[in-house]
């Protein structure tokens, strides 16, 4: 028998100004299956899903839901058509309860009380059915990321969604939480729900999907059965050529310790201790990779070392101790001490998007006497060295007078790299080097990192991409809940062992590993909640 597809897209196109985000997209997803959509950042996956959820209007094309042509001009229509969406960044009201979030927009009547009562019952039933337990009266801001995601799924189910779209759902989860999520998705599939999983992680596609579509530069390049493909083939389809995440490099020749961190601690504005006694040593000529799920203190580690988060403990560069708070502990002092920093987010930290490229090439070093003439800044000298840097790092277009926001992501990253590396630092801190860049830029950045390593620099790399950590690191340290859970050599460990460490489980668990992980995460959550009170 021929069953109508749950979703069928025909010829969907969408342009943002000159950028063609989606070009003639065709895809069919059968009911009761999990369909993966994989592609690089900027391949157009999220745009496509936003069209399906009524956030954007497609320039051309048709959408069929269960065989019927459906117009989706807004989110309301998408909900009515049975589509639910779990966004990468959750759309929850932080100071509302779970229950209030669930009923928002689909209340039964003008009064709240009956809606809340009914939702409480439905929620209880749903959470039993799909392992989706959350406390309905808890405020969202007190929930862990994993639980907030469950609320998003519950929201969709409460709206009686038959089609569930999840956009990069595991980006913020530990591997164990991700496993739990996949169990939930399994259960939903068993109940006949259709699921679209958007991700850039090949492992997830192979693990759970039935069919998979690959997107590249706004086009859907292929749709295949998962069982009939391989990660290598998918990767090739994604980028249009064979990708070797392996970086060519000689064995490291570590020298003397350059960066020595002892018992580093930092407490944030809410009173939560984010760094809880971190001790690390990075030698000259080696890359120390910090693995971990986002939000376990890696950002704070970079900020504390970069001089913009107060800390206690001790940090030494080439044996000289650095002040960690008060005068002499700011970013300028760190730069003077030989620490360069390519921050995690170049758009909100590394660059001033409204400044010209030449102004950005001295950002953080603008107090250097070389750029002064008398009381004023020597703009001519700054422009000269900017032109020079941009030429040598092949920044395109090589126009120093252009505002930073007018460069592509990869070229913005090059401006930051040029600025930080050209100062010939002893220590390079580098956070999420591949975030948002295209493959070409990523390869360039990886090569630069290895070149600096071979030049004897001490490099501290923070990345949430395990593949990247494995490809670049000479040693790997795993961070969880503000602590270093252990150090491993890349050749002597694997994703599974690191995954457990990333969830705070240091010893091989006796029983169910997922239980051990949940217990560990529970402790972290409790600690943070206590600090909030």
């Amino acid at each position: 028998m021929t069953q109508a597809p749950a979703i069928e897209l025909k010829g969907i196109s969408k342009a943002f100004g000159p950028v063609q985000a989606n070009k003639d997209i065709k895809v069919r997803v059968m009911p009761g299956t999990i369909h993966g959509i994989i592609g690089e950042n900027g391949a157009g996956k999220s745009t496509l899903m936003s069209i399906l959820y009524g956030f954007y209007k497609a320039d051309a094309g048709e959408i069929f839901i269960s065989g019927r042509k459906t117009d989706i001009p807004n989110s309301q229509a998408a909900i009515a058509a049975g589509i639910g969406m779990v966004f990468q960044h959750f759309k929850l009201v932080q100071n509302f309860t779970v229950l209030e979030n669930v009923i928002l927009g689909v209340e039964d009547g003008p009064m709240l009380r009956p809606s809340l009562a009914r939702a409480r019952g439905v929620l209880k039933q749903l959470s039993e059915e799909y392992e989706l337990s959350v406390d309905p009266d808890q405020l969202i801001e007190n929930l862990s990321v994993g639980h907030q995601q469950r609320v998003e799924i519950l929201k969709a189910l409460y709206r009686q969604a038959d089609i569930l779209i999840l956009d990069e759902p595991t980006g913020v989860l530990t591997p164990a939480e991700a496993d739990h999520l996949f169990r939930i998705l399994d259960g939903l599939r068993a109940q006949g729900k259709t699921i679209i999983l958007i991700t850039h992680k090949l492992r997830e596609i192979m693990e759970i999907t039935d069919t998979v579509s690959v997107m590249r530069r706004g086009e859907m390049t292929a749709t295949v059965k998962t069982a009939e493909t391989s990660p290598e083939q998918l990767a090739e389809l994604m980028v249009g050529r064979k990708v070797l995440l392996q970086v060519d490099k000689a064995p490291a020749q570590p020298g003397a310790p350059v960066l020595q961190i002892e018992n580093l601690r930092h407490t944030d504005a809410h009173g939560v201790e984010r760094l809880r006694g971190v001790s690390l040593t990075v030698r000259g000529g080696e890359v120390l990779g910090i693995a971990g799920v986002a939000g376990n203190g890696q950002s704070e580690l970079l900020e504390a070392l970069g001089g913009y988060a107060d800390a206690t403990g001790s940090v030494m560069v080439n044996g000289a101790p650095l002040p960690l708070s008060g005068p002499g502990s700011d970013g300028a002092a760190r730069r003077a001490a030989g620490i360069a920093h390519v921050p995690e987010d170049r758009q909100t930290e590394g660059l001033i998007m409204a400044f010209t490229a030449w102004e950005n090439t001295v950002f953080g070093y603008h107090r250097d006497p070389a750029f002064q003439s008398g009381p004023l800044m020597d703009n001519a000298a700054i422009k000269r060295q900017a032109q020079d840097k941009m030429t040598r790092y092949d920044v395109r277009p090589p126009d120093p007078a252009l505002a930073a926001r007018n460069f592509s992501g990869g070229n913005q990253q090059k401006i930051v790299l040029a600025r930080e590396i050209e100062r010939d630092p002893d220590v390079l801190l580098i956070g999420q080097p591949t975030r948002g860049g295209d493959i070409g830029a990523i390869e360039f950045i990886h090569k630069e990192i290895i070149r600096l390593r071979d030049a004897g620099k001490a490099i501290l790399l923070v990345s949430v991409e395990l593949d990247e950590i494995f490809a670049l690191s000479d040693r790997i340290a795993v961070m969880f809940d503000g602590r270093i859970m252990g150090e491993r050599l890349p050749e002597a460990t694997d994703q599974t062992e690191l995954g457990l460490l990333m969830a705070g489980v240091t010893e091989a668990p006796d029983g169910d590993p997922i239980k051990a992980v949940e217990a560990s995460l529970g402790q972290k959550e409790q600690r943070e909640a206590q600090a909030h009170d």
Partner: protein
Amino acid sequence: MDLLTLLQVLDSTVRLATPLLLACLAGLFSERSGVVDIGLEGKMLAAAFASAAVAAMTGSVWLGLLAGIAAATFMSLIHGLASITFRGNQLISGVAINFLASGLTVLIAQDLFGQGGRTPSLIGAGRFDPIILPFAEALSGVPVLGPIYAELISGHSILVYVAFAMVPLSWWVLFRTRFGLRLRAVGESPEAVDTAGVSVPGLRYAAVLICGLLCGLAGAYLATGLQAGFVREMTAGRGYIALAALIFAKWRPVYALWACLLFGLLQAVALRYQNIDLGGITIPVQVMDALPYILTVIILAGFVGKAIPPRAGGEPYVKER
């Protein structure tokens, strides 16, 4: 101080707190929806003028009230257009509205009445009369409670009672109805509201219109209840005190009542006593004038209970790509 004096001060407190309370609740609805409003002063002023002008021309205070509400709502719509539709700077829009009202009221008043930017004094049906509650006269003989009933509770114009009734009503709307849930949500997380399929601009315009309505009542009370006619700049910073009260009240209706009563009391005391002698230390009247603002700064500084505004306040909502 005897009971009668005390009651007179409290009675004056209630009168002076009324416009503050209405304006404060107006701001509360707007800011809870994420639209910051420093234009309360201007809306009140526009309403005060429109109500007095229409009341003077028609002799009907009720038509005046309607005109006042219409004027304040018109100003609200300008604010909505700037801050919701065109995603402009809400603070600057508020400032503009204050000046617009300040200029237009005098300009039109001069054109209509030629009395130096004021309306003729309102008499008779052009004003809201005090309402004497039942048995006020009869009960005034009862010790303590009698005078409280007769002097303090009875004898205000209808808008005073409306203002006080607005407090529980606002609370109920905000915390017990679907509209209130959505309104609070849009001020905290417009993207959550948007993805839930509810119109963000729709909710914000609704909030801004309620704000206009309440400012209209506040302004009309000033010109037709508290005083008898419009004079230039008659709001005299009350919109800003209401704003201060809103912060003081941490954007909650019941706290707003207490904050406005406190600031009303300060005004009443400043009005009655020039300088207050507290056992040798004289508190000049200027201290009383400045006290609401000083208290608000202290609250804002977070030394006494931190005031956390709605999270999405002041930021226009733009769908992310």
